């Protein structure tokens, strides 16, 4: 069975440390994405404790629970998996990563995911996650830092 893969990336016109300070907080989706209504970390754990679960509601009403699998300030990256969602995906693991663009002092931001889904739904899911979630989220970061 093929694993579905999603890839989206953008160049953010700001230093990587500045972008990282916004996206590092696993509970901050409502602050920087346009599609999350509210979010909390379950069991009142710190949002940078590996294993913590964010529980958030999309503006369209869907509820998603995701577990933080890895966080590295050195690599400026984090990974998470989906525990519950209305999307019908299995074994969903995503990685968010920032890399400095040194010559402009900008940031390359990359958002990827792999998951299993029913074959007939796979293409649609790759398309909708890539476009409606990752590209929209990265676009919002770009707009936030546009000078």
């Amino acid at each position, binding site marked *: 069975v093929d694993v579905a893969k999603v890839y989206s*990336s953008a160049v953010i016109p700001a230093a990587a440390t500045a972008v990282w300070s916004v996206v590092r907080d696993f509970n901050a989706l409502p602050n920087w994405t346009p599609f999350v209504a509210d979010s909390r970390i379950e069991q009142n754990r710190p949002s940078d404790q590996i294993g913590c679960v964010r529980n958030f509601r999309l503006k369209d009403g869907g509820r998603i629970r995701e577990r933080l699998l890895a966080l590295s300030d050195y690599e400026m990256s984090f990974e998470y998996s989906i525990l519950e969602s209305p999307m019908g995906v299995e074994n969903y693991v995503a990685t968010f990563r920032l890399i400095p663009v040194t010559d402009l002092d900008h940031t390359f931001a990359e958002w990827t995911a792999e998951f299993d889904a029913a074959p007939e739904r796979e293409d649609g899911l790759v398309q909708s996650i890539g476009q409606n979630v990752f590209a929209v989220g990265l676009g919002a970061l770009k707009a936030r830092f546009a000078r």
Partner: protein
Amino acid sequence: LRVEIRRSTVIAAPIDDLWAILRDFNSHALWHPAVAASAVEAGEAADQVGAVRSFRLKNGSRIREQLLFLSDLKRSFGYCILEAPVPLRDYVAIVRLRPVTAENSCFWDWRASFNPPDAERDRLTGFVRENIIEAGFAGMREFLRSGRAVDMRPAMLVPAARAGAEGVEIVLTRYGGPEVLQARVARIKEPGGVEARIRQTAVGVNFIDVYCRRGSFDLVAPGGVLGMEAAGVVESVGADVTNIRPGDRVAYACAPPGAYASMRTMRADFLVRLPEALSEVDAAGLLLKGMTAGFLLHEVAQARTGSTVLVHAAAGGVGQILCRWAKALGAIVIGTTSSEAKAQAARSVGCDAVLVFGDEDLATTVRRLTSGRGVDIVYDAVGRDTFEQSVACLAPRGHLVSFGQASGDVGAHSIDRLANRSATLSRPNYVHYTDTPDKIRAQSDRLFKALESGAVVAARPRTFSLAQAAQAHAELEGRRTTGSLVLIP
């Protein structure tokens, strides 16, 4: 303490275009402003893990670097320095490309780490950051802007796995300079009755290709493919082929042109099976030049014990073979070269005397060396610049063999001057000595026997990637080469 440098940029080009250039480990001579010339050693492919690129910087430094890994999936490669004139000790670098999907451009990340002596730390760190990495980013931008990259793109985008009957060939877009050569992807047809399809691993570059490119010879029309010589492995054969089988290592050196390609389908009876001791790269550097030297020395004119022979361009591909072979036949050999550096190469193949062309009047010097008599045979492939002098060097009943025009067409001359010496003039054309399978067999048998006896030695050719055919032509025409040049598909 190890120095770690990490620099990155965004290039406004699709990632596949940039990766097609970067994945060629030998392409840096085309786009990096610090690199003057580069070649992959031992005729290995530029994407062979472990391949070593040996290159010269514009400041004269020589560096050798080895490819440690290459991943088309991650669009990444790593390499280390084997030899450098500065103490970039334990130097390892990694290049990686990532697509910027939001804008169809490309993020390029280039890291290097090394272990410098303390006293050199700041200087070397600055050198790597500015002169290697940042200069490389700027050079690539310029290379992409110049449009030169477009020529190589289709050639490099063919993944090996898709090779099948699809190949890359170098097309003559019109008559002109090296820039008229362009790579394109082509279908290489299935072999019919008497044909074979060869997966070519080495392609010989010869002056006849330059003449075809300039339009001096009408062997190739624009839109056609240059090249008379290549070696490789037979991939498949037509039903009526009896002389070779798939898997045989073969080479050829004959018309019609069409050798500048990764695969070729052609008449099987013109193919020569290679002796075990001769590698494909060496064969592609030797076969045409060696067979040429063979018929020039044995059929056009006869060099014998005691003959005096003058060989122009004695350090060139054919020149070196002519000199060594003429010596083995017992002749006294005088070579000419265009520079003192090349004179070394001419001496090393056994010339009794080497004259640097342009130093003094050639005919006077040759007469002095031959007690006033002149030489029995002149082998002249230089053409315009040497023709008059060559006639003046001849002994009575001497023979001028004019077999090329590297410096330009010989032009119109009166034959009256030949009467002074009862001289013979020949203008042999390679094609007429190699246009039947029988002639090819006789020529190649003679060459392989001479190779066995040591009268001919297969010199290690200088290699370029097939996509660098134009660069190879420029080097050959610029008289910057000694020995033979081979393109590696």
